[in-house]
């Protein structure tokens, strides 16, 4: 008998698989909507923590899915959530990459690529907004977000440094 939470994790993240255009950072609002608003698996605070842990960890952005799965049902939850979001599109990618060369120069492919670019940008900006509403509870927190965004835009500092500095500031009570 498979525990119901595992089935629900598989359903929720499996459904997200094909909606993941432009990477996992683009679908944060949808993950938040399902995990916090619909399923009530996590609170806003839990969600912000899961996001922080996944971003501070080496590896792809999609690890937030693993952390959410872990919070819902431990190691098995993490495994199921991660496999569920990867497997459907992986099979599709495997199939498509073999016929890809035939469509490489098709005008429709170029149009799809050029059309999806602004869609992705809208999604990523929405992710930033939803994360700020979820993660930032004080004016200082909003300040950290705005200053980090500004510095990341105008400098070439490695992104990890921003997280390190924030962690130190936070540990000393600046938040």
């Amino acid at each position, binding site marked *: 008998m498979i525990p119901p939470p595992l089935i629900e994790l598989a359903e929720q993240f499996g459904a997200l698989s094909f909606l993941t255009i432009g990477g996992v950072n683009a679908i944060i609002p949808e993950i938040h909507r399902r995990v916090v608003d619909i399923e009530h698996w996590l609170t806003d605070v839990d969600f912000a923590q899961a996001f922080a842990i996944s971003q501070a960890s080496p590896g792809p952005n999609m690890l937030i899915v693993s952390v959410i799965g872990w919070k819902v049902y431990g190691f098995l939850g993490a495994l199921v959530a991660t496999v569920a979001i990867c497997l459907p599109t992986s099979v599709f*990618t495997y199939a498509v990459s073999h016929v890809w060369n035939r469509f490489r120069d098709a005008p429709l492919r170029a149009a799809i690529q050029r059309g999806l670019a602004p869609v992705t940008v809208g999604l990523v900006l929405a992710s930033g907004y939803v994360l700020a509403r979820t993660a930032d509870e004080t004016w200082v927190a909003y300040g950290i977000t705005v200053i980090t965004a500004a510095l990341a835009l105008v400098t070439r500092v490695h992104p990890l440094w921003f997280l390190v500095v924030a962690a130190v500031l936070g540990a000393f009570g600046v938040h």
Partner: protein
Amino acid sequence: MTEREFTELLSLSQFLPGPNIINMSIIVGSRYQGPLGSLAACLGLMLMPFLIVLALAALYGRFATLDAVREATAAVSSAATGLVVAMGLKMARPLAGTAWQVAIVVLGFVALALLRVPLLWALAVLAPLAVACAWWTRR
């Protein structure tokens, strides 16, 4: 693999739905060893980060009672949010000169961030609309 091939595969893996880096490993792996190659590449890429992030999550769970740990994590999530905002703005810059692209960005933002529309509906409307705009304005 040549650099040109690599760039092409990268653009393909970003273009297809699904986590980009996973798609990349599936494609590269399949080049060499078929389905088993894809599986190996994917596992090789994900296994360590997966275990590390869970170890961090477990550590966090153990020490979350400490104020300093909770506060540090909250500050990290605020900063990481800033990085996502910066990424969005960087990606938006090259689109700024094209009216329909700006319109799509704004529509997407309003739908997902302010109205909290389900992503499936938003994509069902926006994706065909955006691709149609790209098609009409193709050179």
